[in-house]
């Protein structure tokens, strides 16, 4: 599938109907999500024919992108059933087979869950500090090859050090920096947080 087509498909997905602020529910926009996933496949071959987990999958954006790019098995985890219901409808519309599990991502580190590639847009930890690093810690336990994740650019040094020194990543690389616009989603957010710089990371295990 071409990048343009992927972006267009992702742009048609139904997203959070009534976002829950405490869970940091906002979708990865089609522009960013399509580039992130396209790059994972075309530059690194981490998607097509692989098993993929989408941590905090919300309405399924990244997992759906993985399926459209030829992933053989995709599983999405989220705490929120309303989001998972929407994700499932998105899959039905596109005739995609994706499995979903309602759970707390933090609990997955103890399980047998194991996939080739983890993709995620974790909560940045604006509501609960450290939430993104908890997701990353779990991701590094369940991925056999690589992890694609978004983190605030302001935490770049911290993410790198923690990933390599504490969480057992073999490599940690920023693929590109982008801007995340939360304006329309969180009307009451503190002003300086409306448009934030975010890094797309690739970690290997």
């Amino acid at each position, binding site marked *: 599938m071409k990048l343009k087509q992927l972006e267009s498909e992702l742009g048609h997905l139904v997203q959070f109907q009534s976002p829950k602020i405490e869970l940091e529910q906002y979708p990865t926009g089609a522009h960013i999500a399509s580039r992130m996933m396209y790059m994972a496949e075309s530059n690194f071959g981490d998607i097509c024919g692989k*098993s993929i987990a989408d941590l905090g999958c919300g309405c399924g954006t990244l997992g759906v992108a993985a399926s459209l790019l030829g992933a053989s*098995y995709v599983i999405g985890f989220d705490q929120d*059933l309303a989001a998972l219901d929407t994700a499932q409808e998105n899959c039905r519309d596109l005739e995609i*087979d994706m499995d979903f*599990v*309602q759970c707390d991502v933090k609990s997955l580190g*103890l399980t*047998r*869950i194991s996939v080739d590639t983890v993709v995620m847009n974790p909560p940045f930890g604006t509501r609960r500090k450290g939430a993104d690093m908890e997701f990353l810690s779990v991701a590094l336990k369940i991925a056999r090859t690589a992890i694609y994740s978004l983190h605030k650019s302001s935490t770049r040094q911290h993410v790198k050090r923690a990933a390599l020194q504490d969480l057992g990543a073999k490599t940690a690389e920023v693929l590109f920096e982008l801007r995340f616009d939360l304006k329309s989603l969180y009307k009451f957010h503190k002003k300086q947080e409306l448009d934030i710089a975010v890094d797309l990371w690739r970690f290997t295990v």
Partner: protein
Amino acid sequence: MRLLTHNMLSCNIKGVSKGFPLGIEVAKLETKTVEFNPQFLRHSFPKIEWKAFQEAAKTLGVNDLPEQVEPSMLDDDDFLRRFHHALLEIHLEEGDLVCPETGRKFPVAKGIPNMLLNEDEV
């Protein structure tokens, strides 16, 4: 939820030492065709707990998987097709997953298992 997912889930209630494999109580199943991909099956095979998988498949009415497996079977097209079907084409839509140690049930509704734990379980 398909059996590849079942093969990775467990009950993680505090104090539970043997939370795998989860039992399955079936209320509704669905079958959907998935493109046959032998390469993916060979790639996934080493990670599968075969006994848990084969027994779960039986619970879902699939009785044609061998009890014992060996890597050489991965060259047998007939075996691969049965493996493929059980692993990726059968969906548990409604039912329960049951912790083998405590009997705690995790409901599956509209294909989505609810593995969330109560506060006193973590």
